[in-house]
């Protein structure tokens, strides 16, 4: 398994696409932070500059784009292999395909830890600087640490779900477009407009974990329930992927 994991990490490192995606995400995260600190770009304050949870909320909101990135990186782990035919060599090297699937899941989870750390380093530095520039409160309260911890968990979970989705939908364009439409359109509309349904969606569950309840008018699930829901989505997609992957002919 170590060899497979090393090979998956090497695959990620040896193409420029990974680095470009991470870079693009950091830019988006920076923009998100810049627009969420009250008074920097938008005057309409959605949260008070004196709120002790200000830093946690700004940093938490900064996870929006990185979550999309992690999912896409996960999806690409398999769809790129199908698209370029490298899956043939991969399965020739390790014909027990469930092991390949698990190695991809693990490698993406590891990558998510690195990417989350880099994201936090950037968003945190920028958040503190911008909040200070507005004379806001940069208290590092309990909620801040929950947000940071949940950020690592949710990023890893999204990466694993991405891998499973990529294994289930080998057509790269269909998988990527599907994920983007779901994350950027469906969830972004349904969660605020129909919270009764929306709060059961993955991003709402993730948001409850990252403590973004206040951004959605406190209509999200509890942290525990959100965690369970997210775990459920991960389990269902992973099990489906583990069932389908060994059976699929590689043509």
């Amino acid at each position, binding site marked *: 398994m170590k*060899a*497979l994991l*090393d*090979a998956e990490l*090497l*695959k990620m490192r*040896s*193409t*420029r*696409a990974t680095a470009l995606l991470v870079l693009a995400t950091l830019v988006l995260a920076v923009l998100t932070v810049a627009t969420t600190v009250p008074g920097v770009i938008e005057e309409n304050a959605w949260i008070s500059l004196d709120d002790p949870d200000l830093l946690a909320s700004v940093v938490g909101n900064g996870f929006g784009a990185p979550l999309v990135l992690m999912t896409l990186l996960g999806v690409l782990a398999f769809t*790129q292999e199908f698209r*370029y*035919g*490298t899956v*043939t*060599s*991969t*399965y*020739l*090297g*390790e*014909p*027990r395909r469930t092991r390949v699937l698990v190695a991809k899941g693990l490698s993406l989870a590891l990558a998510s830890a690195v990417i989350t750390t880099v994201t936090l380093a950037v968003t945190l530095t920028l958040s503190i600087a911008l909040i200070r520039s507005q004379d806001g409160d940069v208290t590092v309260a309990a909620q801040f640490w929950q947000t940071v911890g949940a950020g690592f968990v949710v990023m890893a979970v999204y990466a694993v779900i991405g891998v499973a989705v990529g294994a289930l939908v080998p057509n790269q364009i269909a998988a990527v477009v599907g994920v983007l439409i779901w994350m950027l359109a469906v969830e972004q509309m349904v969660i605020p407009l129909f919270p009764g349904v929306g709060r059961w969606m993955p991003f709402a569950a993730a948001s409850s974990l990252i403590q973004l309840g206040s951004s959605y008018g406190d209509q999200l699930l509890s942290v525990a329930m959100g965690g369970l829901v997210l775990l459920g989505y991960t389990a269902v997609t992973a099990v489906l992927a583990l069932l389908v992957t060994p*059976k699929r*002919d*590689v*043509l």
Partner: protein
Amino acid sequence: MTGVVPRAVELHDVSKSFGDVLAVDNLSFFANPGEVTGFLGPNGAGKTTTLRMLLGLVEPTSGTATIGGTSYHVLPNPPDIVGAALEASSFHPGRSGRDHLRVYCTVAGYPDTRADEVLEIVGLREAARRPVHAYSLGMRQRLGLATALLGNPPVLLLDEPSNGLDPAGIAWLRRFLKDLAAEGRTMLVSSHALSEVQQIADRVVIINQGRLVREGRLDELTASSRVHVESPDAERFALVVESAGAAVQRSSADVLELQGLPARVVGRLALEHGVELHALETSQDGLEQIFFSLTGVEGDAVDATPEQVGELAALHRIVLHGLEGTADLEKAFFRLTQEPHPPVERPLSAQGVLS
């Protein structure tokens, strides 16, 4: 199923259907160590599906496909045992050739230096660190071969390895594959390029519409092909070879076209009967004729004149290698391009046509 010693490569009653389409139909054949087994069939005959079933990439609907008596997914560290090159396009375009190989070295537990060794073997050392999108089709073929050779495996399955290679590359490949077989490896090589197969294969397996149509040693199969004989004593020699079992056609006073005897037997008969020979030549398209008669597939350019073939050469270089007159064109190509001339064994009568 095969007795005590399992075959290096064996298919036993293998069928595969995709929905309503029966791609491979009750196919059985084998490949032996130390031999190149040519795997032939028209496009869509099921060659690639068959190779993929041997490699555990496609699950047979019924039957067994085994390597050394074992199915691929239970082989311990399969790259040690089987190397495969399927299609020239199975690479991430943004990854360098060396990194591509390093990925599979890592999986199989080989040191990175093995990647450099195989790059050297296939002649890609210079291009090792360039991304694959900058590779020509021929270079991708070489990279595919390099991937197959990583584990120095005793069994090699190659799908159309000569596709995209230029004549120098094809001459290189021919020697390379023969050398690999001479080292005792089991080589199963699918190809459209019949004249190439004729030059490298010891045995051939011909399939059509998923079914085996012919299998056997190449010299036995081509024994039924035509042997061209020129002799001032043609009339007497016709009787000799006829009584030895050949079908004889006397096309002019001193020219005989024989079927049913290999050239070496014809030569021996001539010696034994004291017949003077001016030419003794097996027709180059023996395998092609067998192939076309068995598969019902006819190549358009088979009857083309050398001039027509020459025109086609500009358009379809690869197609040429499956055609009569290849040897001459090949020589002409090497002369014109000043490429290093590979040793070409040809009867004297074939020379000079295009020079």
